[in-house]
């Protein structure tokens, strides 16, 4: 009996070894294989603005597009547009002959449906669209938005509004869910690639959409395979073994290795994402500006850049990223000065600190953990204790929104939802968004800044707008509702034969596969 068991074991092992040898890879020369950690659970276009869905960009087209080199809005589905003098009417003329993946035509009615759907679900770019009071289909290829008040940021939010197939959505709607359940595994777009397979948490496969309206000349990526690999070590192994062409989130641990590997290109891009510590100004003693400034001075900025971002990041200069138009480059750069910080704290009535702050951070994000460790030491020098509270992004967002939540400090990002400086400041530091968006995690506001920001939102003249936005930045930095630490880099690694990658701040951390090529992949 006993021996029989062992025989079985040996035979089983042999059989499995034969199988293992038999499993091989297929033909992949026109296929782009991408490894990414966080699984995309939906192809719903409304999630595209956040990090929930980094793939919709392949399957959908927006009305207008943002060109990062020209720093300008350029045509896409809308071949041209007109904004009335008073800024209250937007008219778009659409390209003709665009078809969705099911073969139906993209018309003005689809655009109207997309806007209504986004507002009704209330996620993604909906906050930009709430101003739209009326949508008129002038004909199949002309559409007009009427706004309740002028909003200079609307046009810059539109690259994130992906047009959804109205008929397709209505046909797949269940219990008034706007086809959200259907979109878990399917797309409803007109983009260059369509979803053909979605193996939960494992693999998503796109193939090129032959009838794509921009054409396929000079392009050779016919298939895109997205592999969901939670562990960065696994991602690296697969990259090394040649099973993956792009690893989307290499671990910081592996970057020094990749840098020295001749067969790897490390693509590092500046992003408009800013790492910061937001101070809850409604909590004592953070209501005192001197305490906040002291804490900001007790941050070892170089440590964050060197240790958390391995030299890829950049020191932040206020809340507006340096790549944005109207960034104020006259602002003082933050400095690390423990003595001055101690003095400020003493002036505020807290000589030697003596208080503890609850700090909420997103667990599992290495840059934040490294920063937290540093803060525990440097703020500790001031006599300020830290009680860390790990939270998930969603949980942290709901705490940030809630006026009564516990944490005194949030170690979080400015993650701009558009590319507009005024809009960014409005979302993060105006009184109007307190308790409405999670962004104003400081719960800080100032009547002067609010006035400036309201003026900016309605201002059309670039020179005046620049003046207003820069002044607002000065006022906000002086009040120190947060300490802005670093502009976060985005790093991915790719094989040298992957060409045409570029970073677009209007579509954070995504790939524009349509404009990429594979040159000499075997």
């Amino acid at each position: 009996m006993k021996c029989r068991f062992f025989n079985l074991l040996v035979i089983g092992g042999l059989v499995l070894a034969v199988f293992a040898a038999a499993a091989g890879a297929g033909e992949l020369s026109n296929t782009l294989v991408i490894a990414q950690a966080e699984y995309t659970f939906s192809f719903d276009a409304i999630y595209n603005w956040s990090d929930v869905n980094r793939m919709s960009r392949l399957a959908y087209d927006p009305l207008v597009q943002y060109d990062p080199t020209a720093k300008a809005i350029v045509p896409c589905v809308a071949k041209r547009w007109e904004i009335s003098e008073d800024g209250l009417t937007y008219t778009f003329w659409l390209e003709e002959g665009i078809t969705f993946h099911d073969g139906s035509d993209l018309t003005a009615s689809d655009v109207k449906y997309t806007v209504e759907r986004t507002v009704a679900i209330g996620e993604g770019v909906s906050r930009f669209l709430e101003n739209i009071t009326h949508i008129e289909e002038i004909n199949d290829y002309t559409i007009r938005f009427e706004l309740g008040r002028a909003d200079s940021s609307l046009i810059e939010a539109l690259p994130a509004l992906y047009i959804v197939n109205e008929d397709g959505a209505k046909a797949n709607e269940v219990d008034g869910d706007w086809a959200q359940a259907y979109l878990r595994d399917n797309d409803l777009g007109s983009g260059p690639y369509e979803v053909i397979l979605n193996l939960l948490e494992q693999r998503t496969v796109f193939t090129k959409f032959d009838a794509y309206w921009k054409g396929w000349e000079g392009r050779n990526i016919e298939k895109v395979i997205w592999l969901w690999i939670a562990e960065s070590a696994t991602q690296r192994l697969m990259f090394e073994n040649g099973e993956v062409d792009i690893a989307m989130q290499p671990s910081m641990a592996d970057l020094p290795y990749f840098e020295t590997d001749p067969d790897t290109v490390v693509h590092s891009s500046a992003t408009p994402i800013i790492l910061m510590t937001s101070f809850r100004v409604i909590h004592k003693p953070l209501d005192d500006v001197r305490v906040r400034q002291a804490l900001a001075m007790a941050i070892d900025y170089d440590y964050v850049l060197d240790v958390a971002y391995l030299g890829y990041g950049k020191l932040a200069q206020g809340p507006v990223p340096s790549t944005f138009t109207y960034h104020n480059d006259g602002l003082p750069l933050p400095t690390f000065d423990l003595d001055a910080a101690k003095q400020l704290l003493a002036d505020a009535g807290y000589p030697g600190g003596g208080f503890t702050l609850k700090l909420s951070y997103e667990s599992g994000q290495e840059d934040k953990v490294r920063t937290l460790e540093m803060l525990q030491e440097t703020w500790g020098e001031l006599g300020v204790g830290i009680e860390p509270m790990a939270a998930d992004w969603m949980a942290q967002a709901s705490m940030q929104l809630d006026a009564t939540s516990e944490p005194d400090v949030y170690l979080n990002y400015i993650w701009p939802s558009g590319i507009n400086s005024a809009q960014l400041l409005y979302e993060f530091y105006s009184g109007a968004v307190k308790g409405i968006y999670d962004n104003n995690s400081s719960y800080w506001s100032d009547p002067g800044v609010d006035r400036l920001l309201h003026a900016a939102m309605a201002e059309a003249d670039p020179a005046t707008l620049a003046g207003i936005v820069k002044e607002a930045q000065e006022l906000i930095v002086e009040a120190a509702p947060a300490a802005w630490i670093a502009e976060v880099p985005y790093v991915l690694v790719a094989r040298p034969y992957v060409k045409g990658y570029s970073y677009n701040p209007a579509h954070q951390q995504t790939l524009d596969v349509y404009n990429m090529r594979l040159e000499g992949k075997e």
Partner: protein
Amino acid sequence: MKRDNSKTTDVVRHSPPEATQSRGRMGDLLRRIRITLRFNRLGAVGLFLILCLILVAIFAPLIAPYDPSKLNIQERLQPPSIRHLFGTDAAGRDVFSRVVYGARISLRVAVVVVAIAASVGAAIGMTAALCGGLIDEALMRFTDIFLAFPPLILAMAVNAGLGPGIESAMLAVAVTWWTGYARMIRGQVMTTKNNLYVDGARAIGASRGRILVRHILPNCIGPTTVEVTLDAGAVVLTVAGLSFIGLGVQPPTPEWGAMVSEGHGYILTQWWWPTFPGLALCWMVVGLNLVGDFLRDLLDPRLQGRSG
């Protein structure tokens, strides 16, 4: 990992406690340990492992060469050397010092969780067995609900509710752990209750309390000790698992599971960071398991008979 060894730990039910009282207790115990060790040499290994760990925990400040949470940017990710026996992590902290201090945390986790779980389990199991009838039925069905509940999910939910941190992680694990003890102790009391010598004690008019303390409790201590030792290892692993998914301890606490979790992305480049805490975890769990095995053999009269 919840382990229920109740099916196998009821081996001492044949030996009433009086039997061991007849001759010098200490001498008898020593003799039994000696015999057991003769055919369970691994038991000695286990005892050694755990003893080392306890000593390390007690003398941690003397053993650890560095402050376990002191950052040192110049010494980041250094490989193991004379200066840093286990190397350093991404914040330049000495991994050896952190592993040494981690012994305190893991031992505390093991003791606290098992103590809570065992006392809650014992109370429920004993009440059920002694009262019998409807109360027994109700309590055991209540236990079954907790037993059927997926432990990691329950622990995660409780931990999420209480907020992350080592205390809530311990409580969360304890909440899922007591069921095994309740079932085991109930079974133990049930069998003892009907034994001849208990009947005898009852016949000569011993009070209920006296029977409980003098006759029933002593018979539960053996299996419970074995169970507790075997369980402690699994408890430490579960808390480490919670830390691994970000729900356990918060930085910079040097908990082993959290260290493995923080360092696991570095396994290909700076292998020492996740590896040494992992080995420490292994050290402790293996030690506890071997000691548990040893205790079981020690308390098993049949094995004594074979060798003695």
